[in-house]
């Protein structure tokens, strides 16, 4: 009896299944499916038209450049954006999975420190680039040069008395008046300390504690605060990137900019092809594009970033400055020591100020 029923059930189920298969797809609408398929086929991105970019640039910088790259080449770019440290970590993971082509942004010292993440690529524009900061092994390609400059509040400080050299910042009159961001939150702050050490020719063991002492325990949490805090008079002087200072001036902040007379570093940010890049050909095209004349001029005009090309005429606002041969390898080598000295000095300042009244600016990082 069971056997008979089993046969019957099997047949019943088959009939039901076939009926469902026939009826249900008919209900879902063939026209809609075809419309979806038509668009999907038309805009499907073949492998040779893909590029995966990890970037630590701000959206206002990377987005127009990447959109222009897409329009010119027809290559679709998948963007992953974040902070420099975060992106380098992400790139390491993605590289292991073959899911990243380009790291765009971050100081070249970061690229130099994590060379194993990148593979050499010699850009077709190499002949037109500033020789001073070119990777000897083509591991990275500079995007724009970022000289360090001094700024001062032009209502509170006269041009004559504003600091002109790095050593001027160690003058007693600027004690507690220097706008400077926490080393742990600002790559620029690290470059500044490294530059001071190299320009003045003193070891970081000497210059970091001395500079910390000049800050007088008034440290900003972010480098974004430097321009507004100098402009509003909370600080009178500061050190920042030329790009940031020019943008601040364009935006109408009450600041003026001075190029250091004793020379400054102009450590560029970089761009590099990642190991295991699945679209390495397109990655090469991207690197060529970002150092191309059009993008370099655009970055200079729109973002006040100094081009790395020799053939791009400097725009209005960019002044002449004395450059010195900043030793990136030494800077990378000193990194851990600088952080150690910074933390020790900050801790000592904290203990020294224990019980004392806090500074009125509550946006400052209490140290």
């Amino acid at each position, binding site marked *: 009896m069971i056997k008979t029923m089993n046969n019957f*059930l099997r047949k019943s189920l088959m009939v039901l299944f076939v009926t469902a298969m026939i009826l249900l797809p008919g*209900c879902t*609408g063939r026209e809609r499916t075809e419309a979806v398929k038509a*668009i999907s086929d038309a805009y499907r991105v073949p492998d040779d038209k893909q590029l995966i970019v990890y970037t630590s640039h701000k959206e206002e910088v990377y987005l127009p450049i990447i959109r222009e790259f*897409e329009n010119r080449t027809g290559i679709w770019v998948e963007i992953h954006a974040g902070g420099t440290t975060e992106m380098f970590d992400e790139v390491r993971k993605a590289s292991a999975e073959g899911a990243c082509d380009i790291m765009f942004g971050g100081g070249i010292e970061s690229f130099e420190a994590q060379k194993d993440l990148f593979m050499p690529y010699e850009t077709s524009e190499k002949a037109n680039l500033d020789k001073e900061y070119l990777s000897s092994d083509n591991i990275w390609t500079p995007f724009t040069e970022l000289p360090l400059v001094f700024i001062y509040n032009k209502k509170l400080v006269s041009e004559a008395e504003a600091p002109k050299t790095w050593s001027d910042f160690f003058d007693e009159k600027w004690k507690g008046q220097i706008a400077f961001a926490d080393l742990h939150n600002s790559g620029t702050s690290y470059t500044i300390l490294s530059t001071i050490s190299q320009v003045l020719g003193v070891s970081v063991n000497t210059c970091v504690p001395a500079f910390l002492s000049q800050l007088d325990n008034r440290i900003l949490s972010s480098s974004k605060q430097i321009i507004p805090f100098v402009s509003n008079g909370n600080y009178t002087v500061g050190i920042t990137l030329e790009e940031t200072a020019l943008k601040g001036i364009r935006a109408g902040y009450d600041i003026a900019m001075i190029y250091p007379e004793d020379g400054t570093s102009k450590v560029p940010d970089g761009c590099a092809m990642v190991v295991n890049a699945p679209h390495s050909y397109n990655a090469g095209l991207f690197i060529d594009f970002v150092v191309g004349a059009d993008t370099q001029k*655009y970055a200079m005009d729109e973002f006040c970033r100094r081009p790395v090309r020799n053939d791009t005429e400097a725009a209005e606002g960019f002044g002449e400055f004395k450059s010195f041969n900043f030793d990136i390898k030494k800077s990378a080598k000193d990194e851990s020591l600088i952080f150690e000295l910074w933390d020790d000095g900050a801790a000592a300042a904290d203990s020294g100020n224990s019980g004392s009244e806090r500074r009125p600016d509550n946006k400052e990082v209490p140290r």
Partner: protein
Amino acid sequence: MKGFVKQSFRRQIFFIFLVVTLVLVICGGILTVQGFEARLKADHEQQDEERETLISERIRHMLELSEDTLKTIAENDTVVSSLEGGRANSLVVYSALYEASAGIRDFATVDVYSGGFRKYSTGLGEKAGYLPEEYAVLREAKMADGGIVYAMDPANTTSDSSDLLLAKQITESGNAGIAVVRISSAAIEGQLSGAFNANDGYLLTNRFFRPFCTIGTAKDNTALTLIKKNLFSGKAYNYGAENNIYISELEDRGLLCVYITPPVLEKSAARSGYKIIFIQVIISIIVCLIAASRMSTFFSKPINTLSSAMRRFRKGDFDTKIDLDRDDEFGQLATGFNKMTGQLKNTMEEQVRAERRVNEARIEMMQAQLNPHFLYNTLDTIKWVAKANQVPEIATLSSSLAAVLRTGISGDAFCPVSREIETVRN
């Protein structure tokens, strides 16, 4: 399991009932829910497509008005000559610009660029504007050979929005003169107000799915991320999307409308449908148990009565009768059984009676044979007494008489002639 079920008629009925009911309930339920869902989905898709068409029409209308404006400006001698270095009164140029842009000024501004610098603008204020000449929109316009290009603003842009710039080169000599119609994402949103439901989303994008404007639920960016991920991996653009996504092209402008609507049935509604099916399954199991119990009783009771009667009958109780108050096959079977046992009983009784008669006859026969035997013994005694007393004649007479009697009571129907002659002699 199979053996366990097979051992009981009741279990077999329960199992069959259960399987049939579950198949019907589950398959029927799923088909009902899915069919309902599919029908509803088709209806909603039709409504969505109508709304999407309406939205696209509004966008298309904006673009067509803007294109007409650009063409009008390009054909205006005053504007063109002012860009080509001719002497022109700016009031006259502005007059021409405002006249040409009358139909679009409530949602767009018209700028005229020369060498990347904005020379005239219908926008607010007189702040100088700049667009890079060798990058983005102006470059594209210069390369379009007098055609209209649709581009994003290279400045003041985010990943969610950008002003939509329509540009057309209107002069070639000297610095390229380019007329640009600028439609902000807010203006696009304003033009589309009222065309959406609160839960809908909309994106106007370029061909790389970079949005000019992001409206409503599209702002969470999940739909756009999914679309791009699917296109990168070669799947249908709406693969894995919970929402309904409709993409349409605005002809050959390189612009795409992406319309997003919530699913017809929320997941909870579909889950409720399947919950109801589950409850139906539970109820079916209970009903099957009860029905199987009743049905098995209904079937097994007469079978058990029949089986019991058969057992009694086998043991020799020929008076066994089945009393079933039913008119169906079981009732007919019981009547047949009763008839059969009655006939068998009669046959047996008749056979017993016949055998009894035979036995009686045999006894009678034996009784009949018993008297001559005693007579022979007496005649033999007479014979031997006569011989003892030496009366031979009496001995001979008694012996002959005995022979005559023996012949007479012989059971044989036939005898030889010699025996008859012997009997005569005796």
